[in-house]
């Protein structure tokens, strides 16, 4: 396998903030910190189910996955919160951006859990302990958005205790297990050669097990990774199939998955040529909106949020216009991207009529795969299904007759007195 050294790393630091979404919520609403509270699952609208549960609620017996009625039955004072996935994702994106400032090899896994590749960082920061300190320092500001400050602000500590747990080891699994063992604000380091001994004493729960496999292993009397690794590999495979082999290899420390960073995409450009020069601001705003939507649809943008973007125009008589905007909060939302460009358009409009307009995304911040989790609700799935069907039909048509025959009708100047200026066709993007 060919690896690009700067994008993969065998040594990994797993940075983990458990209950990330709930922490974001309590940081925003400090009164929740002293109550039994739980977040509702974003992908289970009917019947609503509990997603993340505070310690107080857990003590009362509330568990993730319960229906709301079960949870209220166990804990009548339970405060239920509607989830705000966009807010959690923005917070996590800030954390990722901060981590990317420490090391470019960053691999987000889920909200609150991310791997940082640490190969080569010793030259920059020193020992493993110093690398971990650098990670903590770098992420301190981003982490504050997940902390409740009021309850501890007047205590002996100027800042609340960090919830950030770090595990360091060779490969992602060892790093994850180490982070799992770490106390809040602390780190567990598994030095090369110590993996087997470290993993042997760990409970089965650290493995990526489905409930049925977990139950069967427990029934067989296997409680630790060491007990699992002590079994013959073939016997585990014959019982649990291919997933069994992977579990055995993880338990025995035979798998060392590297951290894989992602290359930020090249600039994404969407452009539009008007059939007659356009001077009206409303029309230019409409066109910017359309171009942002198109640029967002670019497959290379997937998994990335836009941080820097430009709008540029070719004007009549060869002049040009350019504005650039850097978003404080990286975003993949059409409205959020359009707003600053509209403001710039209002403040410094083009000096003449526009013949060609382009939107460029030039700076990106990593997003998370968690967003896909949030898109799992039935409506989103139905929309995605329809879109996929339409896209596949459009691709088929293009393939068969060599021309795109599907178009969007867009309002260009619906108020124009000239009928041919009011509406236009634009290629349907597949």
């Amino acid at each position, binding site marked *: 396998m060919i690896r690009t050294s700067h994008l993969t790393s065998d040594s990994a630091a797993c940075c983990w903030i458990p209950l990330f979404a709930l922490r974001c919520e309590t940081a925003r609403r400090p009164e929740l910190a002293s109550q039994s509270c739980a977040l509702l699952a974003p992908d289970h609208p009917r019947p609503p189910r509990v997603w993340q549960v505070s310690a107080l609620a857990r003590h009362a017996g509330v568990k993730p996955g319960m229906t709301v009625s079960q949870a209220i039955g166990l804990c009548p004072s339970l405060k239920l919160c509607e989830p705000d996935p966009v807010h959690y994702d923005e917070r996590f994106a800030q954390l990722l951006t901060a981590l990317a400032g420490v090391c470019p090899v960053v691999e987000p896994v889920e909200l609150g859990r991310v791997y940082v590749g640490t190969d080569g960082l010793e030259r920059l920061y020193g020992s493993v302990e110093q690398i971990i300190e650098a990670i903590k320092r770098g992420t301190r500001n981003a982490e504050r958005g997940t902390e409740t400050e009021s309850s501890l602000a007047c205590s002996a500590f100027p800042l609340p205790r960090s919830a950030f747990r770090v595990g360091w080891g060779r490969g992602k699994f060892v790093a994850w297990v180490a982070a799992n063992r770490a106390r809040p604000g602390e780190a567990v380091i598994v030095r090369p050669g110590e993996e087997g001994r470290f993993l042997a004493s760990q409970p089965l729960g650290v493995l990526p097990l489905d409930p049925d496999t977990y139950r069967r292993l427990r029934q067989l009397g296997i409680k630790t990774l060491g007990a699992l690794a002590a079994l013959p590999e073939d016997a585990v495979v014959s019982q649990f199939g291919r997933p069994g082999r992977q579990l055995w290899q993880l338990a025995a420390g035979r798998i060392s998955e590297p951290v894989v960073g992602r290359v930020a995409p*090249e600039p994404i450009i969407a*452009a*539009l040529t008007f059939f007659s020069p356009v001077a009206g601001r409303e029309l230019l705003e409409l066109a910017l909106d359309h171009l942002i939507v198109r640029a967002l649809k670019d497959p290379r943008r997937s998994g990335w949020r836009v941080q820097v973007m430009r709008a540029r125009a070719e004007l009549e008589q060869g002049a040009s216009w350019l504005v650039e905007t850097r978003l404080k909060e990286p975003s993949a939302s059409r409205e959020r991207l359009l707003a600053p460009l509209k403001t710039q358009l209002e403040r410094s409009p083009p000096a003449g009529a526009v013949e060609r307009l382009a939107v460029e995304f030039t700076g990106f911040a990593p997003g998370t795969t968690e967003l896909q989790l949030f898109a799992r609700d039935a409506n989103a799935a139905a929309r995605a299904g329809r879109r996929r069907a339409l896209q596949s039909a459009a691709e088929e048509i293009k393939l068969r007759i060599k021309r795109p025959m599907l178009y969007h009708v867009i309002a260009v100047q619906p108020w124009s*007195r000239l009928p*041919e200026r*009011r509406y*236009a066709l*634009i290629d349907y993007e597949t």
Partner: protein
Amino acid sequence: MRHETDRLRALNVPQRVQVELDEQRRPRVVMREPGNVKRVESLGENWRMDDEWWRQPIVRRYVEVVLEGGGRVVLFEDLITGEWFVQT
């Protein structure tokens, strides 16, 4: 770096037609293409439009007509070039 340009295709673009006029300069016969000649059965509303005088003036005289066979179309005469177009 990828450059992508979409060209907008205007809808309802005027199509050139040949129009035969009567003595009052009202359309009498419309020929969209050779062999497709239709007599004007009746005339509807007519109106004039002036636009873009600050750039390249557009001056049109629109006439709504019903052609033989019952087809209703909107014609206009470009008063700058004298050409006739059909536009629904």
